[in-house]
């Protein structure tokens, strides 16, 4: 896997708003907003990093789902008609990807960097936030305890950086899966998982590593 393009870790540079700090600084000093060119450059860098995460397989369903989500977020910050058209196109693309590969990442999800969805099929990542370097497999559900579409983001899980989520996992409710935690296959998580812990079973139980 080639090393991903350089992205700084300044706070302005998040997947929600991928703009270089230099551009943000310049805009601040000039009293303007970041230029569309810089914003687009930031998005391009982010997508390049995502593609590298998927070993350059641009047809990988996971990459397509993540890339669509990135552009969808970008469209939210794009004003006027171009923004609306792009947002609609992203919504269509997201629906198509869900139809064909069964991967759904709802619009509100804050998705971290280098997130890898290894396989497709029954993947519904309805979380409040997913951190960096989180890996998912197929048949994975993140969502509210009750199936009603969560109008309340507080009812959704948060997955912290580096977590490893097994296939068949169900992570439901306002739970936090800690940094680098491991959720075993077919596990039902309805309570917080401490950082670095491994959880397995239905219901999930922390097992000593």
């Amino acid at each position, binding site marked *: 896997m080639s090393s991903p393009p350089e992205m700084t870790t300044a706070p302005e540079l998040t997947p929600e708003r991928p703009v270089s700090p230099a551009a943000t600084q310049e805009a601040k000093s000039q009293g303007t907003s970041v230029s569309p060119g810089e914003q687009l450059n930031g998005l391009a860098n982010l997508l390049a990093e995502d593609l590298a995460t998927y070993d350059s397989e641009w047809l990988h369903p996971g990459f397509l789902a993540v890339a669509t989500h990135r552009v969808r977020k970008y469209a939210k910050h794009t004003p006027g008609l171009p923004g609306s058209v792009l947002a609609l196109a992203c919504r269509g693309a997201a*629906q198509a990807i*869900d*139809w064909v590969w*069964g991967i*759904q990442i709802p619009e509100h999800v804050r998705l971290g960097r280098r997130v890898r969805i290894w396989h497709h*099929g*029954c993947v*519904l990542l309805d979380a409040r936030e997913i951190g960096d370097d989180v890996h998912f497999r197929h*048949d994975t*559900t993140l*969502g509210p*305890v*009750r*199936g*009603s*579409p969560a109008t309340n983001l507080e009812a959704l899980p948060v997955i912290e950086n580096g977590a490893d989520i097994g296939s*068949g996992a*169900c992570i*439901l409710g306002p739970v936090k899966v800690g940094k680098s935690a491991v959720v075993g296959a*077919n*596990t*039902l998580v*309805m309570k917080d998982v401490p950082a670095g812990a491994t959880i397995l079973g*239905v*219901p999930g139980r922390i097992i000593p590593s």
Partner: protein
Amino acid sequence: MTLEELERDRAAHPGPLRDGKTNENPTGISLLSLVAEDLKTHGGNVLAPGFLALAVHRFGNWRMGLRSQLVRAPMTAAYRTAQGAVTTLFGIDIPYTSKLGRRIRIDHHGAVYIGVWSMGDDVIVRHSVTVGLVRRNATRAPIIGNGVELGPGACVVGEISVGDGCYVAGNTVLADSLPEGMAAIGVPARQVPKKQLLGED
């Protein structure tokens, strides 16, 4: 029908599902209104796979209300094509002989099989859910009540009844009847009061 009546009918019937000779859609509502209600249940999204699968199911039942076989034949051809498409593309397989209630919501598609004697109203079905026979050559399928939620990955099988308002947790395998207002969690399922698991209701 009461639960007792449903259970009695199920026990008396030779096979796990109904014979499919009649329209078993919910009564007192036209096909179009029923489909419109299903659409509303799925947030108005005409492209929701769950909605499309249910629309095909409703149509499949409605066509059995047509008395003339001549008129019904092209409808049957259309139903079989649509059912094949929905099953293949979305992985949602609901034989039209499964009797379904109103406002059933299929949250996400993929690996959904619903073979029931009867399913009530306001049921939530998440993805990777199996409802059906307990093993090969078994002859009885579940009865699901109103307001039940089947969590992702749940398996509900056998000659059982899941009472109104029950919650079957994710990845749970339930092969025993579940009384009203209870929750089932685990493989095999352990039954706990719903309040204990969910902290409310």
